[in-house]
């Protein structure tokens, strides 16, 4: 025994089993992910901070430190404040609408009915279709002349041609439109999240609630929703983060109009920083997303942890 052990010990390199050590193997697996985050998230973020503290424009690319002046100027601007408010309305509105649609959609496709599999597959479509294509389709539906929505309402006798709304032309309606399109894009994701949650609720618990006298609403809002809340919150974090930082729907549908009724932070940052070339102010606008999202994620993660204990 001693001889064999010595032989193995003696003839092998001490690095031969190096990947059997958890510390080494773990580090090897984690490195690509850490590099990815550092290079594609961390570095741009630091660059944004760097530019936001400068007077950098594409016309005058020399670095000149100005402290928090850009932030002060941005906050004092009416358009920025309007945009910040828009971003919250857009995010909260489309998340609430998406969650409601997702909840009822999930309940609907849970019940067996002929063609359920096809419906389940179709429901994923809004999520899978490229957003640019989908938004163009929505643009036509909201068009001031050719809107199918107006056409349908007039054909049903619910409104006259004179009252037909100009969906994208009126500030309030335009905001409603971008919210609807974003909720439409988000709700398949919400359905998947709710389906995963609801199917994970034990049948015994649902049966017990039925026998204990809980009707449809009580079963849903006192039993199912609290049980699946942690899963839904994770979905909500994703949805909120993606919506808060998104600019594509607004850019494609209204391009911020009419009269600055719809731009969100992403649009304004893009407008100032890239299109107008004022990188410093553009970076400052974009950085306003950070504290909001940071707080949001912390609050939601705390909520999840509290539910799990």
């Amino acid at each position, binding site marked *: 025994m001693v001889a064999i052990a010595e032989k193995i010990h003696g003839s092998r390199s001490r690095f031969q089993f190096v990947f059997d050590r958890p510390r080494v193997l773990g580090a090897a697996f984690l490195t690509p992910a850490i590099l990815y985050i550092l290079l594609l998230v961390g570095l741009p973020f630091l660059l944004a901070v760097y530019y936001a503290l400068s007077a950098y424009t594409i016309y005058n690319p020399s670095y000149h430190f100005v402290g928090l002046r850009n932030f002060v100027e941005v906050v004092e601007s009416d358009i920025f404040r309007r945009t910040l408010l828009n971003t919250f309305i857009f995010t909260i509105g489309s998340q609430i609408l998406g969650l409601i649609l997702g909840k009822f959609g999930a309940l609907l496709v849970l019940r067996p009915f002929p063609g359920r599999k096809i419906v389940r597959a179709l429901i994923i479509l809004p999520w899978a279709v490229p957003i640019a294509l989908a938004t163009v389709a929505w643009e036509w539906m909201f068009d001031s002349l050719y809107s199918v929505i107006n056409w349908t309402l007039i054909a049903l006798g619910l409104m006259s041609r004179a009252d037909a709304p100009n969906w994208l032309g009126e500030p309030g309606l335009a905001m409603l439109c971008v919210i609807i399109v974003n909720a439409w894009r988000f709700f398949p994701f919400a359905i998947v999240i709710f389906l995963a949650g609801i199917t994970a609720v034990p049948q015994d618990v649902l049966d017990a*609630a039925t026998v*204990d006298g809980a009707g449809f609403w009580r079963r849903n809002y006192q039993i199912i929703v609290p049980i699946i809340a942690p899963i839904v919150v994770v979905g909500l974090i994703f949805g909120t983060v993606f919506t808060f930082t998104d600019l594509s729907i607004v850019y494609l549908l209204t391009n911020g109009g009419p009269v600055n009724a719809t731009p969100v932070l992403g649009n304004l940052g893009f407008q100032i920083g890239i299109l107008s070339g004022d990188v410093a102010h553009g970076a400052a606008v974009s950085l306003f997303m950070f504290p909001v999202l940071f707080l949001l994620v912390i609050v939601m993660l705390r909520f999840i942890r509290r539910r799990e204990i």
Partner: protein
Amino acid sequence: MSAISANEISKNFGEVTAVDRISLAVRDGEFMVLLGPSGCGKTTFLRIIAGLEQQSAGDILIGGAVVNGVPPRARGIAMVFQSYGLYPHFTIRDNIAFPLKTQRVPKPQIRPKVAWAAQLLGIEHLLDRRPRQLSGGERQRVALARALVRDPTVFLLDEPLSNLDAKLRASARNEIKQFQQRVGTTTIYVTHDQVEAMGMGDRIAVINQGKVRQVGTPTTIYEDPADRFVATFVGTPPMNLVTWNSGHLGFRPEHFLPKEMIQDGAVTEFSYRVNRTEYLGSERIVYGELDGLLSPQEVTAKLPPAHVPLESIRPGEWHAFAVRNGQLCYFDEDGKRARRH
């Protein structure tokens, strides 16, 4: 009057008949056990009584009134599920109070009622915890308390002990039975465990393939089985069956004894070859086969070790064994009990 009766209840799932014209009357205050192998339809039948499933045909009567189509909450039943079905996000107190809240019982009445149920089951100290902090036995008591709190006319228990370990199961069995005797509520108890059925049931309904095979007291089921299925399903080891004319002859392992141990009465003798013996402390199980008039057949004997010394029965030996004639059961070719062979 029967507390619950089922008339010709059937349930089909597509082509499959899960419950096949079951009729059963449960008396007021009775502890009725539905016993059968898994997949025999006993749980489906219980869920039909609860109103969680709709029967394809037949009537359910609770307290003399037909309750077909009446939702579970209006049937005056309480149910305990196999994995208890506790609400994970509620405290134990809220779990027990839930049936009262859904019935809109005024708040001041809920607290004492919950305290009463918790005290009856000895779980007062757990009221502020959540289900996941409780052991299996404790969860099961919470489920019972939740069932008890609404004063149901019937308890429906669906394999409530199957998630407990063997040791706990024996004590929980005793507790449930004592508890039921104390509150006196009519109970239907589903199980696949014949020990639970024999130990707890006032009467047992043995179910197989969606049909009731026999209803009777544990004594009747054991000593006077209606057919071959009941005879072999109840009892450990199961009843011995040997082919006999066109049917079968059955006798319990504990009735199959060395001839010299039976002093009185008419007996049927067998020549028995011992293959193997098992010493289990309180008893001895002997595995062997019969020969003689019959073709060789596997037969088990259960002997009290005090009566027969271990050394006297060795593998490979032939012994004269016998059964009292009164303890033989004859089954015809369909497996039905025949009184005379």
